[in-house]
């Protein structure tokens, strides 16, 4: 029989199973082909060695670089949001309600199949607490699955004292009994109003989004198309302390926990369907399943590459503790009696827990 081609011999080295049995048998018994095979193998090894290179990568860091560049190149508004180094500075200028913003993040996540707020969260790392609610809701994939309408004023305004903050927000302003080392003086009080996001599912748009992800859209449950989910977060109040160097040292926020309402079909049906959509990471989906219509539980889907989480007890409540892997920021978040409380800062987890447990 004729000798197999050079290409067949080459494939025999990498993928013998991809070579026809007759060719393999021929080569095994043909001195000429065996010699050619040896030369082919030697060339492949030499070229492979010449082309080898160290390509160990830091995927989370690369993602931060990419998402910052992508956001910056397409959205002038985002140029104001600094990437890594500017996180704390951003908090100084815009110490947006940790609690309120977190609430809106969570609410948005629960309804909108989190694969688009999550990149934003990652981009800013846990300084997502420093984003305005409007930033968080101006996200591409909410629109990918339907219409999103945001009403209310989530922006914070400063108020002179705790009493005014309490009157305007209708919330008890938590008092800190002992400040962490390096944090001194009194806080700045800020108050934010109630924010409502209404998400109206569109089967047509979701099908398009799924097709772009290369998958078919699971059949929506009856009555879902055109039905709305309303998410309400806030009002909220935040206290922000600065360190001796002028950087933000501690943020204590409290807000009415996000609550979801639906028109037509039960919220759980909407949530479960959205969770089944293509593109939602499994771990996030699992955490989102804990999201309930009454805001009594707190799903906290976090990017595990950047943030570690653990669970601690704060005055009898189950609290979620987050820390960035670079130890720049730690936060503890919990929900009690329909109110969400956040303690966060460039501190370690023991320090935020001590503050959290000392709140009155």
């Amino acid at each position, binding site marked *: 029989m004729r000798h197999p081609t050079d290409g067949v011999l080459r494939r025999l080295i990498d993928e013998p199973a991809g070579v026809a049995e007759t060719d393999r048998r021929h080569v095994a018994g043909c001195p000429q082909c065996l010699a050619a095979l040896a030369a082919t193998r030697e060339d492949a090894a030499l070229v492979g060695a010449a082309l080898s290179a160290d390509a160990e990568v830091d995927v989370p860091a690369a993602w931060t670089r990419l998402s910052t560049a992508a956001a910056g*190149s397409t959205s002038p508004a985002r140029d104001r949001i600094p990437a890594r180094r500017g996180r704390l500075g951003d908090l100084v200028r815009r110490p947006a309600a940790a609690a309120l913003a977190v609430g809106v993040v969570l609410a948005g996540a629960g309804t909108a199949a989190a694969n688009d707020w999550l990149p934003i969260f990652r981009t800013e790392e846990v300084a997502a607490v420093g984003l305005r609610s409007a930033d968080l809701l101006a996200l591409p994939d909410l629109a990918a699955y339907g219409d999103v309408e945001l009403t209310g004023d989530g922006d914070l305004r400063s108020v002179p004292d705790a009493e005014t903050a309490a009157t305007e927000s209708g919330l008890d302003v938590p008092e800190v009994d002992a400040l962490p080392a390096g944090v001194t003086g009194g806080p700045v009080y800020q108050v934010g109003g109630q924010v409502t996001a209404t998400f109206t599912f569109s089967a047509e748009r979701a099908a398009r989004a799924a097709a772009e992800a290369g998958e078919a859209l699971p059949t929506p449950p009856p009555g879902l198309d055109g039905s709305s989910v309303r998410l309400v977060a806030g009002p909220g109040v935040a206290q922000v302390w600065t360190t001796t160097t002028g950087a933000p040292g501690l943020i204590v926020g409290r807000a009415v926990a996000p609550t979801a309402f639906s028109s037509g079909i039960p919220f759980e049906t909407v949530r479960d369907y959205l969770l089944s959509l293509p593109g939602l990471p499994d771990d996030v989906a699992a955490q989102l399943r804990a999201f309930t219509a009454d805001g009594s539980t707190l799903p906290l889907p976090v990017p595990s590459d950047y943030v570690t989480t653990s669970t601690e007890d704060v005055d009898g409540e189950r609290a979620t503790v987050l820390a960035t892997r670079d130890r720049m920021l730690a936060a503890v978040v919990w929900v009690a009696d329909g109110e969400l409380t956040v303690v966060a800062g460039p501190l370690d987890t023991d320090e935020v827990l001590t503050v959290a447990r000392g709140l009155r």
Partner: protein
Amino acid sequence: MPATGTPGGLRPDLDGVFRREYPRVVAVAARVLGSRDSAEDVAQEVFLAFNRSAVPAGEAAGWLSVAAAHTALNLIRSGRRRAAHERTAAARGLPVVPDVADDVVTLEERGRVRAALGRLPRKQAVALVLRHSGLSYAEVAAALDLSPGSVGTTVRRAESALREELTRHASSH
């Protein structure tokens, strides 16, 4: 401002695709460039292009690898960045490649092989780099619109040409 239609600037599927494919995209570019830093620059450029594109996520793996190979080959064709990186590495006394491979191929030979890679017919060069980056014959075939049977031939030709490049230099010294 590019017309992406996405207010946040990110494709909804970018995150998943990035986490899955980034290491391999860097590996592809690093094989061409011999420098991880340059390779990461190329990977960033390629993912930004993917973000602006309408390439379906299901086809992302092949598209990204081919784009990385082309972008990196364009760079070595100009030759500047590679040479600069290798000089820097050499000046610091750092190997640009693992020690094990140094026993087989010298730094100078690596530079010659990469320069020769830039002179190969483009399809051969890309097929070679993708195969050595771990793509299967079927994946290389799909990515380059070749028949699976011709991938081996294309890769073999590229390897012969690079081998000759090394042999020619070895015998002329």
